[in-house]
């Protein structure tokens, strides 16, 4: 059979043979002879990933037998996966799938033959390698070549234009099903449309879908069949650190030191002992080294713990992922994408242990390089036939980077060969994909995960995702971090929200400290940016941050403790930057006015100000402290640019009455001031008196503002509670599905349209049609016929009206009779009736009465309308275009 196939694709074949031989010659530098060739193969086999004992002395027969055995074994194993695969086998309705799914075209058949041939040669040349993954069965049990399963599609969503979002979508959208046999590629490879429909798939389904989307978006992407780590194959992220918990690295900007200027002063002489410094430095270093050592040991221990269980099947687990080559879409470097997790890895990553083959929608390449060191030394130059054996000749991967010297050796032969090849290129290329275009509905796109929910377990963390609007409180994502590897002790919970009317974006709950922090987007009615608290009770520890530009008072932050309140401001016309209020214990009040608010007395108010450029520095207050309880006011002024000390002033207003009982207005010791440059006018009592009066007013104002701040806190807390309670979501007016108003409007419009349509249909009903049908067709109506037609039509209508009236009458009578009967029955059996029966009877009565009334109404209405309807029809008949000419006389 092999021979037959060989004949079919002889030309391709011989070519390949010769080329392979040439290559081998080059590698081994030996003459081409059957036996040696076998030896070379063996040698090569040893180099490939899994060296196998192949003895060149062994006869081909035993090899054949071995292969047979292998095949049989694999066939035995097949039954096992089929049971595992049942999750879709039963549910997939293959009958509705298009024809291309259920059969192969001629070209596809041809391709399959080519592939078979290729496979045969491959297994012949590399007997120690596993058979290639070339044409698995699709959902209709039809073998399809893997490349034709890739259906390049550009998605209509701008979010899916880049590889990262694309990969994230695929990993979210599909739920992962493990391979039936973790050591072999699957027997079935479904179309992406089916996979999308059921939102389930194994790694091959994942990578095929992702590859289709990436190629559609213009990337140079390939599906890879290879070997991966256990975690990778099982989508096990429990040993990965969650990317969301990683803190972004702070970029430390080193400030560029300006070159010392010509007249820069010399630093003062350093008089400390250098020896002592050195000793100190040595000691510090020793301590540091010790710490480092301890830390390293600890780390090593942890690592050991984590990696305690090793995989017995390491290096044998089959996995499929996506390779993106550099070049297209400005990809600077080739990289892998794991379709399960949507993570990108460099091509040197440890997770990937080897590559068997890779393919895109145009061709199929087999890896001929050695994978002893995982994928670290692989060269992804698909044009290099030594490293990558291709299935079809001359698709768009030319010999990418053949170096000159390689070229020189075989230039002459090559030219001739190429000529031949080119002819064949045209004769055969990859048939178009049999898969229907990939479509994702907007609903599905928005819902993303199957049922809109997805849970990922990371190392010491759990990530849950929901589709927007799925949770009625707007929750879209929750990250729970744990203290231990077993995930039993919760450290903290982060919840992300979307579309909240209160603009809540993130809720951060620290389970250890009990601290909650809510973060808001701009647009909260109170301009809240962040609210961190332990309890929602007022007068407790809390911090509120605000969007200061949205607030009239320029408040940035308000911190509260049970006894204090601190506020930070910016951009105020009075240059206030800081206010700190100390509260004293609440004074107990009489029960009488308990209903009134009882604010805590303020003990001390400290206010700080920015520099007011309009005033000279030594008249510009920097800080003022109102010691309310002690009736003292302390002022500190800004420091002048050429001074190091600042003016200070303290007002005492305790003694109001002197020894004789006279009122003292102002005395010199009521104002203690320190002035850096003594000024004359400030010594005056009048000046001091006026300043004090002003300060007293300002104190009142500050107290009032502090009180207002307290009120505002209460208000915000109340508002927050209400918002938490209501958790209403905003719906964009463009979101026609969710926006109730627009939905109603649209439905109303549809209804109107529908009715309009019905009316039109009604109007088109031809009342003359049954009568016209009686007349011989095609003839013109005579006048007599027309009159008769009209009369008949009217009579008929009259009859109908009468019939209808009779019908209603009959129903009416029937109902009344039944009711009477029932009443009679009731009166007779009234005594023996159970309460249930009575109830039944009563409800029947009321229903019957209702029906009778309705019938009565209908009858009377019919009686009213019938003559009118009759006249209307008559009128209409007179105006009918078919009769109008003939009936004119009568009008």
């Amino acid at each position, binding site marked *: 059979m092999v021979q037959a196939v060989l004949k079919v694709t002889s030309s391709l074949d011989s070519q390949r043979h010769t080329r392979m031989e040439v290559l081998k010659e080059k590698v081994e530098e030996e003459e081409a002879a059957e036996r040696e060739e076998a030896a070379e193969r063996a040698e090569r086999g040893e180099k490939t990933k899994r060296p196998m004992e192949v003895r060149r002395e062994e006869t081909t027969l035993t090899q054949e037998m071995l292969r047979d055995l292998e095949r049989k074994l694999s066939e035995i194993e097949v039954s096992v996966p089929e049971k595992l695969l049942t999750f879709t086998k039963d549910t997939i309705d293959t009958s509705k799938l298009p024809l291309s799914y259920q059969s192969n075209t001629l070209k596809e058949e041809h391709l399959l033959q080519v592939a078979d041939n290729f496979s045969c040669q491959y297994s012949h040349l590399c007997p120690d390698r596993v058979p290639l993954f070339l044409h698995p069965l699709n959902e209709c049990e039809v073998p399809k070549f893997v490349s034709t399963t890739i259906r390049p599609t550009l998605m209509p969503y701008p979010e899916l234009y880049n590889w990262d979002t694309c990969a994230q979508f695929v990993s979210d959208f599909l739920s992962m099903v493990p391979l039936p046999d973790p050591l072999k590629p699957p027997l079935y490879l479904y179309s992406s449309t089916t996979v999308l429909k059921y939102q389930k798939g194994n790694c091959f389904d994942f990578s095929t879908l992702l590859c289709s989307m990436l190629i559609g978006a213009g990337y140079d992407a390939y599906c890879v069949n290879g070997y991966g780590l256990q975690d990778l194959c099982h989508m096990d992220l429990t040993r990965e650190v969650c990317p969301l918990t990683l803190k972004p690295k702070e970029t430390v900007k080193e400030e560029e030191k300006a070159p010392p*200027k*010509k*007249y*820069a*002063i*010399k630093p*003062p002489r350093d008089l400390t002992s250098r020896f002592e410094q050195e000793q100190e430095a040595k000691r510090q270093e020793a301590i540091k080294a010790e710490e480092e050592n301890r830390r390293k040991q600890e780390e090593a221990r942890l690592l050991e713990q984590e990696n305690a269980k090793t995989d017995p099947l390491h290096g044998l687990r089959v996995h499929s992922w996506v390779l993106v080559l550099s070049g297209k879409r400005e990809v600077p470097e080739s990289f892998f994408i794991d379709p399960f997790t949507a993570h990108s890895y460099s091509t040197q990553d440890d997770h990937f242990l080897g590559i068997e083959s890779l393919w895109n929608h145009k061709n199929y390449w087999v890896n001929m390089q050695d994978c002893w060191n995982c994928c670290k030394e692989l060269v992804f130059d698909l044009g290099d036939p030594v490293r990558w054996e291709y299935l079809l000749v001359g698709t768009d991967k030319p010999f990418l980077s053949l170096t000159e010297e390689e070229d020189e050796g075989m230039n002459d032969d090559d030219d001739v060969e190429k000529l031949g090849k080119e002819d064949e290129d045209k004769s055969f290329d990859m048939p178009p994909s049999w898969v229907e275009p990939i479509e994702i509905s907007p609903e599905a796109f928005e819902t993303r995960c199957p049922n809109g929910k997805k849970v990922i377990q990371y190392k010491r963390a759990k990530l849950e995702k929901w589709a927007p609007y799925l949770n009625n409180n707007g929750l879209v994502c929750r990250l729970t971090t744990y203290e231990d590897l077993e995930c039993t002790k919760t450290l903290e919970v982060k919840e992300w929200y979307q579309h909240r009317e209160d603009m809540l974006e993130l809720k951060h709950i620290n389970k250890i400290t009990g601290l909650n922090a809510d973060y808001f987007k701009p647009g909260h009615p109170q301009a809240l940016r962040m609210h961190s608290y332990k309890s929602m009770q007022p007068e407790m520890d809390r911090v509120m941050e605000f969007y200061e530009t949205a607030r009239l008072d320029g408040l940035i932050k308000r911190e509260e403790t049970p006894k204090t309140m601190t506020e930070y401001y910016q951009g105020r016309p009075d240059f206030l930057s800081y206010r700190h209020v100390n509260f004293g214990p609440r004074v107990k009040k009489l029960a009488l006015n308990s209903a009134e608010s009882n604010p805590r007395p303020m003990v001390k108010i400290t206010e700080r100000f920015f520099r007011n450029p309009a005033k000279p520095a030594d008249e510009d207050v920097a800080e003022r402290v109102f010691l309310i309880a002690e009736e003292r006011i302390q002022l500190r002024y800004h*420091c002048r640019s*050429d*001074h*190091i*000390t600042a003016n200070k002033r303290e007002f005492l207003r305790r003694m109001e009455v002197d020894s004789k009982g006279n009122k003292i*207005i*102002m005395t010199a010791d009521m104002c203690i001031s*320190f002035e*850096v440059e003594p000024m004359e*006018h400030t010594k*005056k*009592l*009048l000046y001091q*008196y*006026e300043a004090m009066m002003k300060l007293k007013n300002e104190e009142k104002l500050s107290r009032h503002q502090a009180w207002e701040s307290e009120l505002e806190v209460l208000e915000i807390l109340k508002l927050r509670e209400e918002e938490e309670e209501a958790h209403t979501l905003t719906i964009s007016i463009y979101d026609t599905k969710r926006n109730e108003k627009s939905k109603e409007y649209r439905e109303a419009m549809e209804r109107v349209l529908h009715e309009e349509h019905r009316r039109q249909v009604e109007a088109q009903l031809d009342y003359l049609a049954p009568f016209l049908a009686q007349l011989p067709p095609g003839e013109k109506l005579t006048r007599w016929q027309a009159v008769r037609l009209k009369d008949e039509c009217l009579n008929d209508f009259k009859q109908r009206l009468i019939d209808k009236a009779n019908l209603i009458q009959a129903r009416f009578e029937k109902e009344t009779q039944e009711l009477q009967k029932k009443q009679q029955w009731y009166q007779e059996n009234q005594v023996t009736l159970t309460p249930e029966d009575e109830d039944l009877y009563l409800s029947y009565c009321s229903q019957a009465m209702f029906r009778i009334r309705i019938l009565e109404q209908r009858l009377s209405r019919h009686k009213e309308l019938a003559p009118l309807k009759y006249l209307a029809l008559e009128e209409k008949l007179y105006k009918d275009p078919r009769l109008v000419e003939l009936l004119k006389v009568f009008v």
Partner: protein
Amino acid sequence: MNRLYDMEPRVMDDEMLKLAVGKQGPREEAGQLAKQEGILFKDVLSLQLDFQNILRIDNLWQFESLRKLQLDNNIIEKIEGLENLTHLVWLDLSFNNIEAIEGLDTLVNLEDLSLFNNRISKIDSLDALVKLQVLSLGNNHIGNMMNIIYLRRFKALRTLSLSGNPVAENEDYKMFICAYLPDLVYLDFQRLDDHMKELAEMKHQYSIDELKHRENLMQAQLEDEQARREELEEHKVAFVEQLNGTFLFDSMYAEDVEGRKLSNLPGVGELLETYKDKFVIICLNIFEYGLKQQEKRKAELETFMECVQEAIQENQEQGKLKIAKFEEKHLLSLNAIREESELSNIETKIVEHSEDITALLNVLMTLEMQLVEQLEETINMFERNIIDLVGLFVENVQSLMAQCRDLENHHHEKLLEIAINILEKIVKGEMDEDLPDDLRSLFIDKDTIVNAVGASHDIHLLKIDNREDELVTRVNSWCTHLLDKIHKDEIMRNRKRVKEINQYIDHVQSELDSLEYGDLLD
């Protein structure tokens, strides 16, 4: 308008002013305080002296910070004695007998001036009042429309009253003012509407355009002059003013009678031309070199100043930090002492705190001394550099000037040669051309002509020497002045800082002391 002298004119004496100040001072509690303390005239902001029959404004020199002064309804005849009131914003002189506007040249801050009901016939002498917004000149004797054009220079003027003047009887009065004072908003207490303004503008367009043109020309001329003056100033700073042309050369011949006569000799004309060209080129060299050197000196000075400022700033920051730290501690220990009840503890605490204060004093002083040392070093370095720079400049200029002198000597020799040749020709009677009489008079004998040429040469050399000396002395004096100033500033700074530190320490100490006494009293 004349009010009769029905009352005795009064003199503005101290008593009157005190009374007025006292009456118009603060009220109630503040008033009591003010009475207790007395009010200084220089603190008064506003003063009202109406209906006082004042004849002469006097005794107001003490009111330095006065903002508002009302002298209406008096019999003042002359505006005087207001020179010191430079902060005045509002001045009311209405209902007086003033005949001319004068004595307002120092009141640059004046915004509101009322001269209502006086005998003024001409608007002038208001040039200094650049901020004038309101001008009231009603009920006066102003008769000439042209007075209004004078008001065009007050860009801020918004309100004007001129009713009751002969001008106002002119039928075109309103239109004229509208047209010539387009920024005016109120005239005679009425708002000028836009329509009116448009009409007026159309009516007087031609004359206004002409006026504007003239004003613009004037403005341009002024600006030109300003620019020229600035340029000259710049050159003067570089000590090479008027070396960028033929000025020096021309000045050499300005006082040189013989030289001018001799230039009429045949052949001397060309000689003079080449000499002049060469001379001017050297002058230009000096000029450019001077400007370049000036740039260098400026840059040097700037970097020096910058560095010194930075050093001082840094030192101040350190000082501030120390003081802030101390202040925290200070407050705490003061409170602690206050609350302590046991006497022995109080004493130890007080002692401890005074030690802290001394430590602060030491730290601050050390910082200051450190800065002084550092700055001294830097200043010395700068001094050396700037002296070197100036020396180099002087040296180079002198060498260039020497070139000028060489040229002059060369020219002198040539001239002498020509003169002697001509003398010989004249003596031999071979002279064809006619020489002017005054020139011929020089060619009497050899001595005379040699003396004449020599005198001319001497004058030229003198001029060159003078210019050189001027430059050198000026640049040297600039240098010494600059260095003096830097040294002086540094000394002042140091003294100020030391004083500041001492003051602060005294204050802190006194706080502690007062606490001690208070405790002792308790």
